[in-house]
C-alpha cells in the first residue's frame, strides 16, 4: 500500500515579473516526515514555502497538499483560480511560522493563540481557551498567557507563534527560518519545541540554517540554489558527503 504524500511538488515554477525565482521544484514529503530546506539567501527557499500555503501563486507545475491541488481548482480540463474563501479554507490546515514571528501585538499571548480557532473555525471559546492553555504549556509559556508580545523575548515570541499555528490543528507545519532573527542563546529553546513536535509525528517543512538541527531531526534534506533543487537526500549523507560542487561550497561556509 502506498501512502498519499502530504506534499507533492511537480516542476513548480514561480516568477515575479521578469525574475524567475523557482525553476521547477519537484519533491515529496510523506506524512510524519520532516523536510529541511537549506541554501543561500535568494535561492527561493522561502518562496517555495509560501507557495505551499498559497501566499504566493504558482505559475507553472503542480503543487498538491494531502492530494489536493493548491491554489487552483481543476474543472473540465481547465485550471480555475480559487475564490478567496476556498483559498482561506486550504490554508486553515497548514500552520506557518515566520522568521519575524508576526504575532499580533495588540493581543496577549493567549489571545494570539485563540483568535483563529474562534474566528475562523468558529469553535466555542471555552474549549479553545482550554486547548490554548495546554499548547502554551507545551511550548513552556503557561505563565505568560496574559503577556503582550512586546514584553516577551524573541524566543518566547516564536514559541507563542508556534502555539498559535498549532491551535488550528494543522496537518502540516511550515517554518520559514524560525530562528534566524533570534539571539544565539535563544535559538535552542525554539529548536527544542520543534524537535518535540517532530517526535510527536507532525509533518514539517523547515527552511533553516541550523545544520545541527537538520542533521538530527530531518528525515530528508534539500539543498536549493537559484530556484532549483541541487541535491537532496538523508541529511547525514548530504552534509557529510555532498556530491555537487555548489553544495560543497555552501556547506564549507556554514558548517
Amino acid at each position, binding site marked *: 500500500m502506498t501512502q498519499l504524500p502530504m506534499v507533492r511538488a511537480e516542476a513548480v515554477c514561480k516568477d515575479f515579473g521578469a525574475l524567475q525565482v523557482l525553476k521547477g521544484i519537484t519533491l515529496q514529503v510523506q506524512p510524519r516526515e520532516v523536510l529541511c530546506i537549506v541554501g543561500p539567501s535568494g535561492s527561493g527557499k522561502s518562496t517555495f514555502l509560501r507557495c505551499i500555503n498559497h*501566499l504566493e501563486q504558482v505559475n507553472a507545475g503542480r503543487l498538491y497538499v494531502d492530494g489536493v491541488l493548491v491554489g487552483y481548482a481543476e474543472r473540465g480540463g481547465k485550471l480555475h483560480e480559487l475564490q478567496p474563501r476556498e483559498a482561506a479554507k486550504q490554508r486553515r490546515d497548514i500552520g506557518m511560522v515566520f522568521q519575524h514571528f508576526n504575532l499580533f501585538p495588540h493581543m*496577549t499571548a493567549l489571545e494570539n493563540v485563540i483568535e483563529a480557532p474562534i474566528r475562523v473555525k468558529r469553535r466555542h471559546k471555552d474549549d479553545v481557551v482550554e486547548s490554548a492553555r495546554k499548547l502554551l504549556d507545551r511550548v513552556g509559556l503557561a505563565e505568560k498567557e496574559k503577556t503582550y508580545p*512586546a514584553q516577551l523575548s524573541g524566543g518566547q515570541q516564536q514559541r507563542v507563534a508556534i502555539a498559535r499555528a498549532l491551535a488550528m490543528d494543522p496537518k502540516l507545519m511550515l517554518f520559514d527560518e524560525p530562528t534566524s532573527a533570534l539571539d544565539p542563546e535563544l535559538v535552542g529553546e525554539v529548536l527544542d519545541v520543534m524537535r518535540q513536535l517532530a517526535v510527536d509525528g507532525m509533518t514539517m517543512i523547515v527552511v533553516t540554517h541550523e545544520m545541527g538541527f537538520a542533521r538530527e531531526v530531518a528525515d530528508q534534506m534539500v539543498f536549493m540554489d537559484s530556484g532549483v533543487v541541487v541535491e537532496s537526500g538523508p541529511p547525514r549523507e548530504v552534509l557529510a558527503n555532498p556530491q555537487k560542487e555548489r553544495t560543497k561550497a555552501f556547506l564549507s561556509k556554514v558548517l
Partner: protein
Amino acid sequence: MTTLKTVEPAPPAEAIKAVPLRHPWRWIGAAIVLALFALFIYGAATNPNYHWDTYRAYLFDKRISTAAWNTLQLTFWAMVIGVALGIVLAIMRLSPNPVLQSAAWVYLWIFRGTPVYVQLVFWGLFTSLYPHLAFGIPFVHQFVHLNIQTLNAAFFFAAIGLGLNEAAYMAEIVRAGISSVPEGQSEAATALGMSWSMTMRRIVLPQAMRVIIPPTGNEVISMLKTTSLVTAVPYTLDLYETQRGIAGVLYRPVPLLLVASTWYLAITSVLMVGQYFLERHFARGSSRRLTARQLRALARAETRQQGGAGAR
C-alpha cells in the same frame, strides 16, 4: 599566560548624597510669566469694555446652549460622514483596481484643493442646481420624486458639505494608519485562514487605530470650530451665528464672542478627555514597559524564588 580569575562580588556602594544644582534663571523666568499673566487678568477684569455683566447674563442663555447643542450635532454628523467615507476612500486608494484608485485620487484632489467655505456655498446652491431629486433606475423608472426646494434642509446640507470635505482628509489619515501596519501582520492572518475582511477588522484596523486616533482627534476639534463657517450654506442656528444675532441686537460683540469662545473651549476640553481614553485603549500591547501591576507580580515572584533558595 594569564589564568582566569573568578570575580568577587563587590561590596554594596554607599548611596550618593550631593548638593543639588541651583537654577536661579528658571525662577526668574517663572516670576516674569506669572506677573504678566496677573497683569492681563487684572486689566481684563477692570476694563468696562469687556462688559462682563453681559457675559454673565448670556453665558447660560437658552438660545446659546441650544446653539451649542446644534453645533455639537453638526460636528457629530459631519464626522460620521467624514470617517465612513474616508475609510471607503482609503480602501479604494489601496485597492489594486486602477479605476477605483484614480476615482479616490480625483475626489481628494477636488475636495482638498478647494476652500471648505466655497464648498459650503455650493451646497447652499445645490437646490438651484438640482431642484428635483428622483430615486429610481435612470431613464427607466422613478420610485421617489422629491422637490427639494421645498425642504428646509440647511442643517442637512451643512452636515453633508462639512462631511464630504472631511472625508478627503480622513481618507489620508486612514490610509497612513493602514500602511503603518507591517505586511507580516496580514500575512500571518492570511496564513491562519482569515478572510480579507476579517484580517482588516480583527488585525489591521485595531493596530492602525493607534496611528489614526490622534490626528482624528485633531480633526474632530477642528471640525467643531469649522462649523462656524456653515453660515455660508446658510445655516444660522449654530453657536457662532446665534451669538452674532444676539450681539447684533445688543450692539455688544465682545462679551458674546467671549460667551461663544467659552462654550467652544468647554466642548473641546471634553473631547480631549475622550481622546485620551481612546488612545489609551488602542495603545494595548504597544509598550515593552510593564504596568505597575505586572512589576509587582514580578517582584513577588523573585522574592519567592530567593526565599525558596534560602530555605534549601
